[in-house]
């Protein structure tokens, strides 16, 4: 077993060797521009791009003509939200989203507010969940777009997208979802989920970084977008710029593997590793708090607050494990995770949260090592924690007059 062990598969995933294999010829022999329509080099590159388009479309039950390749899901989110808002602005200037969306959606909404749009930020409950009824109540005559993520990147909570999509469809509101975290972990089908726009990323599903896609519905209803990048008119004018052929080919290969992962036992194996980790940790220590719904959750996510162990100190203590924390000390803003805060998690507990993201390449041996290491280090940090000492003495921490700084 090699250390450090990678357990941060929500941040990114290792590029699958089979994906790399598929990409390599497109960096060596097939180097044409997919837009060169009049020679063999261009045709070969275009064939690679179109094969990938089909593979990506199949993963989400779409038609290949509905796939627009981008530089990644951030661009896809930007294109979806800005593109709809600017195209349909004469119809209305109201948008709906949630307070736990990825910054690629939230900050785009903030930018639109400066352009005169109004945005409703729906609040999730303590489990991190929204309801279709909340969305319906927020819809106004001038609402043009609703953007709700399929699954959250921090707590892995899966929203009732099918129901939300149905409500949007019934009211004529365009529905966008960011499905970056859920692809290859749970089924994603744009038809049954009533989705009009859907963002995808390659590197969260064992593909290369720097490439993503946006699904744009073409029929019943047909969704129109104003582009945000202008130039050569590639991707039917929605995304100008020379195709990153090798990246796109890699995304296609990754999409095919992601589709297989749902039925070949991979997802079940990852889920059982995640369950093993959670059961193991709970058996070894007290004062653990699960963040987010357990029932409506991605199979590879575990987000736990280890009370009395500050997150950054924890990550230093378990440096053989690559994880992530909602602690303020790990963020540039020095604020604890806005997602946990939106769920109403106590700031104290938000500081102690650790996110584990299990992946395709993790083993049972690694999980058992993680359980042992975390158990040992939580004990060490709690022995050093004045808060744990006070609680063990029977003091209620809320009764102390703390000096904020």
């Amino acid at each position, binding site marked *: 077993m090699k250390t450090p062990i990678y357990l941060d598969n929500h941040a990114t995933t290792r590029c699958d060797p089979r994906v790399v294999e598929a990409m390599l010829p497109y960096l060596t022999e097939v180097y044409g521009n997919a837009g060169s329509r009049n020679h063999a080099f261009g045709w070969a590159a275009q064939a690679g791009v179109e094969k990938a388009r089909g593979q990506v479309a199949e993963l989400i039950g779409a038609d290949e003509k509905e796939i627009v390749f981008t530089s990644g899901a951030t661009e896809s989110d930007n294109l979806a939200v800005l593109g709809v808002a600017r195209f349909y602005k004469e119809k209305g200037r109201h948008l709906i989203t949630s307070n736990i969306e990825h910054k690629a959606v939230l900050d785009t909404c903030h930018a639109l507010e400066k352009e005169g749009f109004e945005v409703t930020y729906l609040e999730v409950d303590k489990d991190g969940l929204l309801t279709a009824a909340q969305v319906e109540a927020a819809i106004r005559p001038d609402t043009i777009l609703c953007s709700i993520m399929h699954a959250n990147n921090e707590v892995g909570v899966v929203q009732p997208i099918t129901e939300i999509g149905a409500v949007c469809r019934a009211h004529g509101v365009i529905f966008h979802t960011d499905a970056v975290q859920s692809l290859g972990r749970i089924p994603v089908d744009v038809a049954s989920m009533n989705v009009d726009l859907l963002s995808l990323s390659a590197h969260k599903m064992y593909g290369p970084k720097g490439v993503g896609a946006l699904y744009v519905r073409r029929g019943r209803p047909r969704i129109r977008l104003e582009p945000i990048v202008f130039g050569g008119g590639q991707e039917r004018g929605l995304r100008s710029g020379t195709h990153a052929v090798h990246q796109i080919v890699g995304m296609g290969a990754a999409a095919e593997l992601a589709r297989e992962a749902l039925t070949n036992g991979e997802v079940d194996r990852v889920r059982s590793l995640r369950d093993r980790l959670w059961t193991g940790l709970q058996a070894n220590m007290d004062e653990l708090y699960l963040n987010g719904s357990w029932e409506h959750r991605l199979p590879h996510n575990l987000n736990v607050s280890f009370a*009395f162990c*500050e997150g950054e100190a924890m990550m*230093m203590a378990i440096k053989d494990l690559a994880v992530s924390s909602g602690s303020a000390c790990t963020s540039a803003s020095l604020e604890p995770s806005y997602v946990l805060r939106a769920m109403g998690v106590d*700031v104290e507990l938000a*500081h102690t949260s650790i996110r584990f993201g299990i992946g395709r390449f993790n083993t049972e041996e690694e999980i058992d090592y993680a359980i042992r290491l975390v158990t040992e280090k939580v004990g060490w940090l709690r*022995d050093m924690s*004045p*808060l744990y000492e006070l609680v063990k003495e029977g003091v209620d921490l809320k009764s*102390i007059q*703390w000096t904020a700084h």
Partner: protein
Amino acid sequence: MAYSNKVVDHYENPRNVGSMDKNAEDVGTGLVGAPACGDVMKLQLKISDDGIIEDAKFKTFGCGSAIASSSLVTEMVKGKTIEYAMGIENSQIAEELKLPPVKIHCSVLAEDAIKAAIADYQKKRAAKAASAAS
């Protein structure tokens, strides 16, 4: 966070972790910070009648640099006078540990902990003197 070797050393091998009897007359306890801010330090100083800090113990909830800052101050004050300890400034701690700018508040907290512990000790002394005089 890329920390200096000194922070990592104090974090991985913290000096003087522990607790003393907070009710003892010769022990001053400082509890500073707030759980909501992500760091709380408890510093305890055992002080002789002639004002020498004979022992120092800490417990800290906080990031690596908060733990390192508290560990460092226990070393800095041990065997020193109250006057010396009161004169320690956060900049000395930050400089010694080469703290990055976003972590300066950890050194401020450590300085506050020293002052709070000594204040607690002096309050106990004053109360004792008052009860002896009455």
